């Protein structure tokens, strides 16, 4: 069974082609890492999967649990179990974390034919999930990401992931801006949420995060294409040699 199947996906922004034919398959329980130099199109791929309309899909198909993902509204993708941890989470002053999460949880429940969560259960859930990423009470009582430090924003993304229990999580450079302690906490959080039926795509620039979240498959994305796929050793090789050899290999 394949959870996510991407076939020859091409996408552009303002007429400029960024994704030039991506192929990728993710099965339940798998962890995939996508690595690659800046500007390769990693965030673009994540955005397209999440349904960001700034990017235009010009070719290809994506199926998620055998459904055509590309025709689904972004909110339905989320409700169906797709989660994107943003590289740059936005601040939304005036929307409280609590209201935000309550709405999100209830939308998902509605999608699955469940009743809205009771206030009591919600508060318990909030408490439990905060522990997963050692999230400060101070943060959940504020507006979404407002005044959060870079690291706090990343923690908040994983906290939201914990609340929504997605089937497929795409973590876009969740490690950037985290010190080593925070990285460990966040990575442990992700591991705690992992089940045999959930999958993760870890987008990262560095090998470091992969010491904690160990991938089954590593892909190298360069210039809008996946140019190399291998086991977790590929990440180590990249760490050693840098990206230049990939660029050379591809450009030859």
């Amino acid at each position: 069974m394949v959870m996510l199947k991407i076939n020859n996906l091409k996408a552009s922004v303002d007429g400029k082609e960024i994704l030039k034919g991506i192929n990728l398959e993710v099965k339940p329980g798998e962890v995939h890492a996508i690595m690659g130099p800046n500007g390769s199109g990693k965030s673009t791929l994540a955005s397209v999967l999440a349904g960001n309309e700034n990017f235009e899909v010009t070719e290809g198909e994506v199926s998620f649990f055998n459904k055509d993902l590309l025709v689904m509204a972004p909110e339905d993708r989320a409700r169906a179990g797709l989660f994107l941890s943003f590289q740059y989470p936005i601040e939304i002053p005036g929307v409280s974390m609590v209201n935000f999460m309550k709405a999100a949880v209830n939308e998902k429940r509605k999608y699955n034919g469940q009743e809205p969560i009771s206030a009591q259960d919600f508060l318990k859930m909030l408490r439990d999930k905060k522990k997963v990423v050692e999230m400060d009470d101070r943060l959940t009582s504020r507006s979404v990401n407002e005044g959060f430090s870079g690291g706090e924003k990343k923690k908040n993304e994983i906290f939201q992931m914990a609340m929504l229990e997605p089937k497929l999580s795409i973590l876009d450079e969740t490690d950037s801006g985290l010190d080593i302690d925070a990285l460990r906490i966040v990575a442990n959080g992700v591991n705690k949420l992992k089940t045999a039926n959930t999958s993760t795509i870890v987008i990262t620039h560095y090998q470091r995060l992969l010491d904690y979240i160990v991938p089954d498959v590593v892909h190298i994305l360069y210039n809008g294409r996946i140019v190399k796929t291998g086991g977790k050793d590929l990440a180590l090789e990249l760490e050693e040699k840098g990206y230049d050899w990939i660029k050379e290999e591809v450009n030859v």
Partner: protein
Amino acid sequence: MSEIDSNTMKYKLINMYQQNKAAIEEGLPDVVNRVRENAIRDFDRQGIPEKGSEAYKYTDLMRAFGKTYGYSFKAPKTDVDPETIFQCAVPDLDTYTILLENGWFYNKSGEQLNLPKGIIVRSFRDAATEFPELFEKHYNKYLESHKESIASFNTAFAQDGLFLHIPDGVVLEKPIQIINLLRGGNPLLVNQRNLIVVGKNSQAKVIVCDHTLSQQNFFANTVTEVFIDESAVFDYYSIQNQHNQSSQISSIFVNQMKNSNSLLNTLTLHGGFVRNNIHVKLAGEHAEANVYGLSLVDGKQHVDNFTFVDHAVANCNSNELYKNVLDDEATAAFNGRILVREDAQKTQAFQSNKNICLTQEAKMYTKPQLEIYADDVKCSHGATIGQIDEEALFYLKSRGIGGHEARMMLMHAFAYEVLSHIRVPVLMERYGDLVEKRLRGEFSKCEGCFVHCN
């Protein structure tokens, strides 16, 4: 679209004044009557300001004046049961409730108030006779210098309204809620006149709810003068929720003495044509004025907030924040004038106007106007007109919160900044609910109120 032009309307009104002078003056003392002639001359001289004139750049007053209205020189014979009316309190909000009908003080409403000793709530007309010193000292004193012709029109016709006096040193915990009702079987023009005197070192909060009870064309031209004496703290929350065929010009003139602190908050939910004139004069040092407004408009509504903060002396602060959310073909205007006079050193004056237009057809006009004649001051102003933040919208969608719901959340968040300054916690919550309901297009009338104003 108006049925007549502004000059004809002006003469019609002046003629009406001359024909009914005796009826207007009846029962009122000299202190109120002697200023009428001057006022009507003033109105004659200035007329109904044209659209495009300095203070009415984006607002056509003929939308209000250009219709046919009846006028009543007598208090209405009310058939409303006061018991029912008194339930028209915002729930969970314990207030002293006062009712005015078509601009006239509903006398019975004062009887059951049980106000703390010394606090005076009266009809404007009774108070004018009963408290001559207060009227001599304050009546018609705070709008003279501004020469607002619409206010002069009110002065000429003023017969009743609310009088409120908080004596020196009295702190009123519970807010006073003033419910202005417009009702009747015919279109009606109303001139309501209020005078509020807040004594030294006292504190009071007033919540004003403007409602319409029947579907007629109403035009309420209200003038409120507020005197805030030394070290007093005064809050004035106005909730405008009249039906969309009604017109309203609401002018408030605030005069603040040394160390006083005011908060004026105007929430406009419904009303076809709304013009708010907010004049605040900081006349004593270390006075502070906080002026906030939020309008949520749709359909063909037009809302114009005109504010004038006059820093007349040194060491005063003013903070101003106005926000508008415009949908459909609604239009809104904001004019924020700040005057810092020559001697008003160490002034701090901040102004911000932020707006969201949800459609291409909605139009927002904003005009800051800073006149600074002192050199050692801190002043800032800023205005933005934008749409819903697409990036924030996508963030919410990516968490499963659908487009409509996400939009609501963001609009509510936008409005929240104004609500966060409300100094009555329960009222802040109530405002939150009202705003949410208004944004959802549900009835925004105060729940539990017998008034069906939509």
